[in-house]
C-alpha cells in the first residue's frame, strides 16, 4: 500500500477512535491478568462491542472471521493511533490465548466448521482460550506428554494433568495437546483437540507464583469430554499443529523488549537520575550503574531495530519467521535486564513487597521483575531457543538434546 493511502487510512482511523473510544479509559491498561476495575467495567464492554463491530479486535483477520481484513501496516497504524490517545485494544487480552495463538492456528489447520464456530467469538473477545500444553514431568520436553485422549463414540475421553495453563480457571475453551496413540513414537501419537472448559471432568487449581499472582493453573482432566469434531488438524499429527502454534507464541513475545512494552512513562535514565542523582558533570552519580544503563538502552534499541529490520525484510510477514527464536531470546534478555535495573536503581525502595512505604510503581516493578523471570522459561526456554537456532538456523548437527 502506498504511503499516501496509508496516511488517508490513518486519518480515518484517528477520526473513528475520536468518536468511539470511551475517554474514561484513556491511559488505562488491563493488568497482567486482564482484570478491569468495577467503575470502568461498563465502558470496557462498550469499547469491546465497538471494536468488534469494526473488526479491530483482530484487525488482520479476514472479515468473515470477525476481523477487518487489514494489512499489517494498517494494523500498525491503528495501534499507533490508539497509543496517541492512550487507548488499548483489550480484546487480545480478554481472549486469553485466543487472538495471539489459538486463532491463527485454527485459521491454518481448522475445518470450515471450526473456523466459523470459534474465530468470530475470539475476535470479539467473548470467549477466552487457554492452552493445555505442558505437563508436570515434561517441562521443556513437550513431546514427553502423557495426558491421554481415547475415542469413545462421538467424543474424545481425556484423562491426565496439564500445568502452566494460563488462565484456565477463567477460560471457556482450551486447546489441548493429548496423546492419542501410545504405541507410536513420541511425536507421532499426539493430537491437538479443542476442549470446552465448563464440564465436570475438568478441574483447575491456580498456582501461586513467586510474584504472588496466580495467572496459571494446574488443570486436571478426569474423563473430560470433547466432540470428535473438535480435533484440530489430522489425528496423531498434533505435533505439527503445536509447532506452528509455538511459532506464533514466540512471535508474540518478541515485542517484550521494546521500550513501549514496559509501560513506564519516564525513561529509565530519568528514573535513575531521580533516585541516584548526578555528579558535577551531569552524569549519573553511580558511574558503574550509568555504564550498565547505557549498555541496556543500547541493547534495547538494537532489539527494536532488529524487529524493524526483520519485519521489513519479511515484507510484513514475520509471524512464523526463522528469526523468532533470536528475537525471543533478545526480547527476554532486554526485558529481564530492564527489570533488574528498575530494582537496582531504586535501591532500598526497589525491594518492597507491600505497604505505603513503597509507591505503586515501585511495588509493580518488583512483581514485574519476579513474573518476568518466567520469560526465559515458558514458550520454549532460553536453552530450547538456542537449540533451535543452532540446529534449524545454523544447521549444526543434532546434539544429545532434541528441540
Amino acid at each position: 500500500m502506498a504511503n499516501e493511502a496509508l496516511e488517508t487510512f490513518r486519518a480515518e482511523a484517528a477520526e473513528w477512535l475520536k468518536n468511539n473510544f470511551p475517554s474514561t479509559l484513556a491511559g488505562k491498561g488491563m493488568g497482567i491478568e486482564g482484570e478491569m476495575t468495577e467503575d470502568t467495567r461498563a465502558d470496557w464492554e462498550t469499547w469491546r462491542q465497538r471494536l468488534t463491530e469494526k473488526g479491530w479486535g483482530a484487525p488482520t483477520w479476514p472479515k468473515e472471521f470477525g476481523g477487518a481484513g487489514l494489512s499489517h501496516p494498517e494494523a500498525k497504524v491503528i495501534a499507533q493511533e490508539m497509543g496517541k490517545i492512550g487507548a488499548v485494544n483489550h480484546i487480545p487480552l480478554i481472549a486469553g490465548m485466543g487472538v495471539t495463538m489459538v486463532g491463527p492456528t485454527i485459521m491454518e489447520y481448522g475445518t470450515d466448521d471450526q473456523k466459523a464456530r470459534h474465530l468470530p467469538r475470539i475476535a470479539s473477545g467473548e470467549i477466552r482460550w487457554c492452552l493445555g500444553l505442558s505437563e508436570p514431568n515434561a517441562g521443556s520436553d513437550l513431546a514427553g506428554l502423557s495426558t491421554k485422549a481415547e475415542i469413545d463414540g462421538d467424543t474424545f475421553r481425556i484423562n491426565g494433568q496439564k500445568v502452566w495453563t494460563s488462565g484456565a480457571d477463567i477460560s471457556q475453551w482450551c486447546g489441548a495437546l493429548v496423546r492419542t496413540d501410545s504405541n507410536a513414537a513420541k511425536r507421532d501419537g499426539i493430537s491437538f483437540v479443542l476442549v470446552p472448559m465448563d464440564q465436570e471432568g475438568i478441574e483447575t487449581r491456580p498456582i501461586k507464583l513467586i510474584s504472588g499472582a496466580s495467572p496459571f493453573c494446574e488443570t486436571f482432566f478426569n474423563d473430560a469430554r470433547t466432540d470428535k469434531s473438535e480435533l484440530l488438524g489430522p489425528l496423531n499429527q498434533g505435533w505439527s499443529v503445536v509447532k506452528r502454534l509455538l511459532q506464533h507464541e514466540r512471535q508474540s513475545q518478541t515485542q517484550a523488549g521494546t521500550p513501549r512494552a514496559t509501560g513506564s512513562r519516564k525513561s529509565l535514565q530519568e528514573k535513575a537520575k531521580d533516585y541516584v542523582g548526578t555528579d558535577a558533570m551531569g552524569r549519573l552519580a553511580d558511574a558503574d550503574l550509568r555504564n550498565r544503563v547505557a549498555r541496556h538502552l543500547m541493547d534495547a534499541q538494537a532489539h527494536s531495530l532488529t524487529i524493524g529490520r526483520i519485519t521489513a525484510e519479511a515484507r510484513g510477514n514475520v509471524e512464523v519467521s526463522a528469526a523468532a527464536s533470536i528475537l525471543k531470546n533478545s526480547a527476554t534478555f532486554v526485558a529481564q535486564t530492564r527489570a533488574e535495573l528498575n530494582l537496582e536503581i531504586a535501591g532500598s525502595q526497589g525491594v518492597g513487597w507491600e505497604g505505603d512505604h513503597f509507591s505503586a510503581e515501585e511495588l509493580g516493578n518488583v512483581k514485574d521483575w519476579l513474573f518476568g523471570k518466567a520469560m526465559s522459561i515458558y514458550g520454549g526456554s532460553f536453552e530450547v531457543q538456542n537449540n533451535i537456532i543452532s540446529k534449524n538456523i545454523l544447521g549444526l548437527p543434532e546434539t544429545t538434546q532434541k528441540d
Partner: protein
Amino acid sequence: MAALTEEQSMIRDQAKSWVTEQSPVQKFREMRDKDVDGSYFPETWSAMVDMGWTGIIVPEQYGGSDLGYLTFGVILEECGRQLTASPLFASALAGASALLVAGNEDQKQAVLPKIVDGSAIVTLAVDEGPRHDPAGARLKAEKSGDGYMLTGDKTFVLEGMTATHFVVSARTGGEGEQGITLFLVPATATGVSREQVRTMDSRGYANVHFDGVEVGADGVLGPVDGGYPLLEQILDRARAGMGAEMLGTAAQAFDMTLEYLKTRVQFGKVIGSFQALGHRAAMLFTQMELARSCAEAALQAIDENADNVAELTSLSKAKVGDFLHDMSNQLIQIHGGIGMTDEYDAGFYLKRARLLETTFGNQAFHRNRYAELLNF
C-alpha cells in the same frame, strides 16, 4: 590466607547441623506465612544465645568468647543457607561491632554483655534515602544540655522493629564525611517511633523516626564530629559479615541447583548431562570458589587488624554479590516452571538475594569504592 582452624571447622559442623535440623528453610516459610511479629521466632533467637553465637566477636571480659569475625562468618554462612531469621547479624555482629569500634569502656560494659545474653538487640541506623550513603546523613543532632537532641528519619533499619538500641549516624556539623557523630539511642527513648517496612524477603526492616529525641553525653559513641571513619570501620565489619551470609545463601542455591541437575529428567536424560548446563554449573562453581576466598579474606583481615580491610570488604561484597545475583537467577532458570512457584523455595532465595545485595552498598557501590581506594 589460612584454612579454617579445627575449632572453626567444628563450629561449622555444629552450626550446619543445628540450622539444618532446627531452623531449615521450612521454618522461614512458616514465619512468613504466619507473618510472625518481629519477623523471627523468639525460640530461634534464644537457641542462638544459648549456643553462644551472640558472643563470638565479643571479648571475654564482656561475656563473649572472642573467637573473631572469621568464626562468626562460618555461622552466618550456615544461617544464610537456610535463611534462618533472627537478629544475629544485626545485633551480635553489626551492633556489637559498633560498640567494639566506637564505644568507650563504660558503654562496652553496659551494652556488650546484654548483646551476648540476648537481652539487647543493637542495630545500625545509617541510611536515610534509597541508596546506601554513609556520608549523606542529614538527621540532625543539636547540642541540648549535657547531651544532644536528635531529629530526623532513618530508613531500611535491619531488625528495626525488635531492636532495643539504635546506633545512629547524625549530623552535628559540616557536610559529607565531616561533622558526623554516632549515637547509641535506646528504642524506648521519648520521641523514637518506628514502622515496619515490608520487603519482599520478609526480613525485619523498619523505618525509624527521631522526633526531638534527647540523648545524654553517655550516648555519644566516639568523637563528636569525627564519627565518619569509625562508621566506615563498623560498616566494613557489617559488610564483611554480610558477605559470609550472602555466600551461604548463594551456596545453598548452588547446591539446590546441582541436585536438580542430577535428578530432573527431560528428553529422556538427566538435565545435568546436557553440556550447556554442565558447563554453566562448572562456571558457577568456579565463581563460587572465587567468591568464597574473598569473603573469608575480608573477615580474616578484620581479625588480623590488617590495613586493607576496606579494600577486601568491598571486594567481598562485590564478588559475593555478583555470584549471589547470578546464582539466584540461575536457580530459577534451571529449575524452570517449578522454580517460579511460591510453593517451592527458590523464590525465597531470589528475593533474599536482592535484599542482601542492596544492604550496605550493592556491587556497583563497592566496585566504585574499590576503584577509589586504589586511587583511580
